[in-house]
């Protein structure tokens, strides 16, 4: 394997996104010996702060600074990347809402292969990279062969690769700002409309009692609040609960909701899709209660109970309130 590996780094307020180190780990899984070049685009001084953080882990950084990049508009960044990347390059992008916007179109412009939502690599067969991904909302896994002879754009599932926290080194920053031209697009960013702030801020809670589809009915939500009360925690939920309008959006944990870092996380009647688990950071102690013993949540949990939450939770609440 002699391909050049690139990662695209998203960042906010001068700090690279968690996904950056995961992408480095993913690149390492493709080719442990390859040097990885990180691409950081943006405007203002924050870009340098981000670059320094990345350089400290040993990677080389391509830096592109331009007023037009103040907000990461995938349509403009695609143009930047097409100008900067060599042909045949492999670029890894986090499969988040930005990566979904960028990856597919970029692959066409680079005339490279595209694979999205990758969860693992299993080596290579000649010019073909052997990739693992999932279909049917994670119900089955597939092996995919990807012909990388003309380069590839690979979108990596957030959280699928474990970042190596001990990476050190001294990479260098190369300013590629001059290579970026025509930074206009038929799509113009206007503003971000923040989700309505709810009464609670689940991102600051140490104990979260999270409820999913297993609650079955809005009227049953009471048992979750009762438990949260005796445990001194706050109630959060998975997406179906918000879709059903049983709880406000601000309580939703997951990639399309809040990212939380509690110490203890109770997943009650939550099957455990990666989109949900994507919102769970900081390695909390996870307890899963689900009546389906095969629910993926049990893979992610520390302790599991196979039970119907409608029966189990009231009893648990009673026991805890006895102790209190």
């Amino acid at each position: 394997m002699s391909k050049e590996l690139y990662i695209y780094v998203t960042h906010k307020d001068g700090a690279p996104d968690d996904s950056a180190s995961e992408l480095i780990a993913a690149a390492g899984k493709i080719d442990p010996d390859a040097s990885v070049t990180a691409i950081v685009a943006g405007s203002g001084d924050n870009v340098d702060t981000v670059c320094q953080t990345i350089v400290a882990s040993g990677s080389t950084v391509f830096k592109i600074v331009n007023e037009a990049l103040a907000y990461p508009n995938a349509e403009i960044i695609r143009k930047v990347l097409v100008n900067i990347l060599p042909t045949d390059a492999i670029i890894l992008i986090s499969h988040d809402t930005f990566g979904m916007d960028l990856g597919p179109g970029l692959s066409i412009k680079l005339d490279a292969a595209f694979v999205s939502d990758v969860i693992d690599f299993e080596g290579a067969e000649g010019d073909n990279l052997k990739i693992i991904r999932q279909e049917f909302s994670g119900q089955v896994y597939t092996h995919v062969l990807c012909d990388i002879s003309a380069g590839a754009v690979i979108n990596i599932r957030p959280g699928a690769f474990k970042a190596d926290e001990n990476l050190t080194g001294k990479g260098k920053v190369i300013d590629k700002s001059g290579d970026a031209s025509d930074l206009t697009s038929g799509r113009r960013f206007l503003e971000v409309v923040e989700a309505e702030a709810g009464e609670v801020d689940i991102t600051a809670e140490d104990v979260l009692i999270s409820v999913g589809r297993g609650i079955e009915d809005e009227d049953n939500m009471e048992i979750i609040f009762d438990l949260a009360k005796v445990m001194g925690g706050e109630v959060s939920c998975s997406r179906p609960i918000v879709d059903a309008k049983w709880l406000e959006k601000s309580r939703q944990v997951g990639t399309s909701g809040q990212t939380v870092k509690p110490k203890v996380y109770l997943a009650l009647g939550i099957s455990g899709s990666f989109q949900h688990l994507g919102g769970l950071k900081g390695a909390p102690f996870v307890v899963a209660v689900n009546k389906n013993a095969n629910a993926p949540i049990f893979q992610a949990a520390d302790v599991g109970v196979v039970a119907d939450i409608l029966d189990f939770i009231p009893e648990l609440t009673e026991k805890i309130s006895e102790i209190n």
Partner: protein
Amino acid sequence: MTTALISPAQAWVFFIPTWIFSLLIPVIGMAVFTYIIVLRLAPLFRAAPDQRTDQPLKRIGNVLKLWLVQYRQPRYMLAGVLHIMIFAGFLILAMRSMSMVLIGLSEDFVLPGLGGEFGHFYTIFKDYAATMVLAACIIAAIRRVFIKPARYAVPAKYGHDHTAEAVFVLGLISILMLSESLFEATAMVAETQTGSQAAFAAPLTLVWFFKLMLLNASISALQSMHLIAYYVHDLTFFFFLCFLPLGKHFHVITSVLNVYFMRMQKGTIKPVRWGVSDEQLDDLESFGVKKLEDFTWKHLLDFYSCADCGRCSDQCPANAAGRPLSPRFISIKGRDLIFKTYPLKTGKIHNSEPLIGSIYEEDEIWSCTTCGACEQECPLGIEYIDKIVDLRRGLVEDGDVPQSLQKPLRALEKRGNPYGKMERKRADWSKAKEFKKDCQVKVLDKKTSADTLYFVDSITSYDDRMQQIGQATARVLQAAGIDFGILGKAEKDSGNEIRRFGEEMLFQEMRTQNTEAILKANANLIITADPHALNALKNDYQGLPPVKHISEIIAQSLANGSLQLKPVEDTGKVYTYHDPCYLGRHNDLYDAPRMVIDALEGVQRVEMAKFRDRSFCCGGGGLMLFYEPEEDERMGVLRVRMADDAGADVIVTACPFCLANIEDAIKVAGMEGRMEVIDLAELVDRHLV
């Protein structure tokens, strides 16, 4: 005949002979009345067709029972008795009122048959009737104005209160009674004073009171009062006649027709359009009711006939639970829309707007569980379920189906069950290891046959909890020595709720597939433990073997000794039976399940406040389980509280949906541990010898 007073037919006022008034009032009155009625009839002629002329004898029977005898009125005792008093009085006074009109033209007029002895007797009789009506009107007015029964209240969203109209009409009736009596009393007093032979005034009647009051009045005063009373009566009479079709008192005229044309068969749903066969349905331009004239003429007649008594809504479980549905206002809003679309003032008919979004809301229409409590209660045979289903048919065709119902409907189309589970797993409940040890269930096909077919239906086939009902039913059938089998994967959802949720074509698809599979199984009898399946197979399907509910089979097996039960296990518990709507109200099966429970030696059984044909729906079955209504409280919770109030610890039901709803409700009501629910088949299974 010479009388002491000059009659309205002979009198003169300011050089005008009063007979001119006696002629003009009825002529103008009848002209106005005819104009109103023609305009009221117009929408009926523009409405969808209906078939209501079959079984005339049975229909006449209904008229005698519901209209003449007012059979359903005493279900609400005080209001019912008052109504019967006024209604009976009206019938008795009808002949007198007609004579009164004609007396104004010819003072000697006597209705044929009212001469002689009978006429004398009738006079006394109608005098008492008039007095009774006045008394009833006074009590009714006091009740409406001061006692204000809750069911007459009009929630703000449905407009203003209706008390004024009600009291106004009571006033009109009172004026009729008083003026008629005064007219007669003045004549009598005058006769007495002039020494001619006075007619007899029955004691304690209005006439009798007036006679006492006027004994010393002068002849001229009597003469004036006589004439005034006559024309007050005449005017009021024709005013009242023309006023009736303007509001809820139209029922005075339409009720007899409404009862004659009322629906004759229970448990069914009207076809999409009368006179259009299932094969021709594809040619129909539009399905269901979308605008006013899409209703059938009988359904519009229903709107006219609603007396606004509020009994339907008082019994409606959706209304009780705070859902946005009140059957009373389905009628009142419909009636008011007819009045608006066919205005009397201009006589110009307006174009009809879509009903949904103008007078009805989608949530209102989806809130109905089709439990039938409203129709069971209506004293004059107004229908609601067919209207709701017709409105839903319109919504379904336009794609306006709540998201929560779309998934199960799609799954039904693809898989024949609302859960989207695989067809081949439909009989999995019968293959569970523990169960299979003692009970083998045959799957009927060309090679395997049985005398009886057990139709399981979707919820019992697939729901973890309800599979136990299936297993219990199978064990009970086995114990009763019945040779039975199931259809397995060839069985589809019976479609009871698919039809009632307005997806007629999907229902017909299910019916076709089931009918084929059932006939292929070649059984002599079909039994089911699911009342929704029972209702569909019995009333919505054609050409099947007889269909019976498991409770009938158990009752029969207990009676002939083929099944024996142990004494009740837990003698300390008090049992109550919850009538499933589709077993009770829609199929008249009330006694068999009670007999089965009572067959357990030592069992204590109580009835809840609402039972048999007044049973309170648990929350609805079939697709209703998927619908997410707006409501203050679950119906099931209200029902569980009723059981608690009756002092019961165990609710026995005979329907998997009731079991599901009540089991849930017990949890929501926080009554776990002190209230339980069990299916009848499970109860019997537990007590098999």
